[in-house]
């Protein structure tokens, strides 16, 4: 069984519960800017970074399409493949919006992932710690910040 790891410790318990209940193979929890808060199932840092960037880009572009159509932003997207499905969902927390990118296999389903995604969102809202001064990610400390995040996500 692969492990669940988090940069932000408060995300760990809701994410572990989500993974156990939904049967998700891979999960990334991130900000709309693509900064990763927690992950489950990824083996390589480069995969996490690529998936986060792509997930954030998909949400940004569909959000833009929704804006052009004068619609509310799409809350979730689902792509069903032959063996695996990909789910991308957005939700609000007291600390701002978050995204979840989920890959699931034939032992789960879009319905189960969506159902427990709602619980994940509720769990994370409840677990959000009290507001603290947001840290600006500056170019100067970006690399250091990234290294720290990857170290947390892969336990090194």
């Amino acid at each position, binding site marked *: 069984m692969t492990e669940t790891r988090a940069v932000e410790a408060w995300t760990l318990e809701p994410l572990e519960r989500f993974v156990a209940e939904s049967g998700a193979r891979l999960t990334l929890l991130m900000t709309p800017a693509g900064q990763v808060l927690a992950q489950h199932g990824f083996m390589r840092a480069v995969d996490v970074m690529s998936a986060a960037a792509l997930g954030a880009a998909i949400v940004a572009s569909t959000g833009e399409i929704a804006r052009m159509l004068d619609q509310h932003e799409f809350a979730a997207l689902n792509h069903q493949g032959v063996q695996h499905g990909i789910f991308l969902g957005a939700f609000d927390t007291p600390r701002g919006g978050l995204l979840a990118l989920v890959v699931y296999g034939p032992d789960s*389903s*879009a*319905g*189960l992932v*969506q*159902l427990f995604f709602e619980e994940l969102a509720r769990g994370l809202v409840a677990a959000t710690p009290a507001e603290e001064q947001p840290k600006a990610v500056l170019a100067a400390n970006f690399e250091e910040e990234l290294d720290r995040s990857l170290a947390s996500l892969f336990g090194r």
Partner: protein
Amino acid sequence: MSTVFQRVLDNITRVRGVRGAMLVAGEDGLIVAESLMEGVRGNAVAALAASLQKRFRQAMEAAAVGMPHFLHLQGEDGTLIIVPAPDGMLVVAVGAPDMNVGLVRLEMLRAAESIS
């Protein structure tokens, strides 16, 4: 919702004790059509019923009795019934523990037939 779907679901929910009926995409666990009383979580019923049917299908295949065509889960406080339609859709009903299962079963089998 299509009138055919609405009619078959109405026939099920008309039975006393039934709190909701739905058509569910079996592989995805997503709602196709629903007729639910207030308080019934349609997305949860759809996702869990599909997953339950999938898991029991494996056990029944291992037991060499074939694909289940009727599943009845009895809880202390309620009942869940699942009837797979031939095209992968599921007819699902949820209701009181003492609902008339015989009648519900009949309507659900008819529904499965008519939506195929």
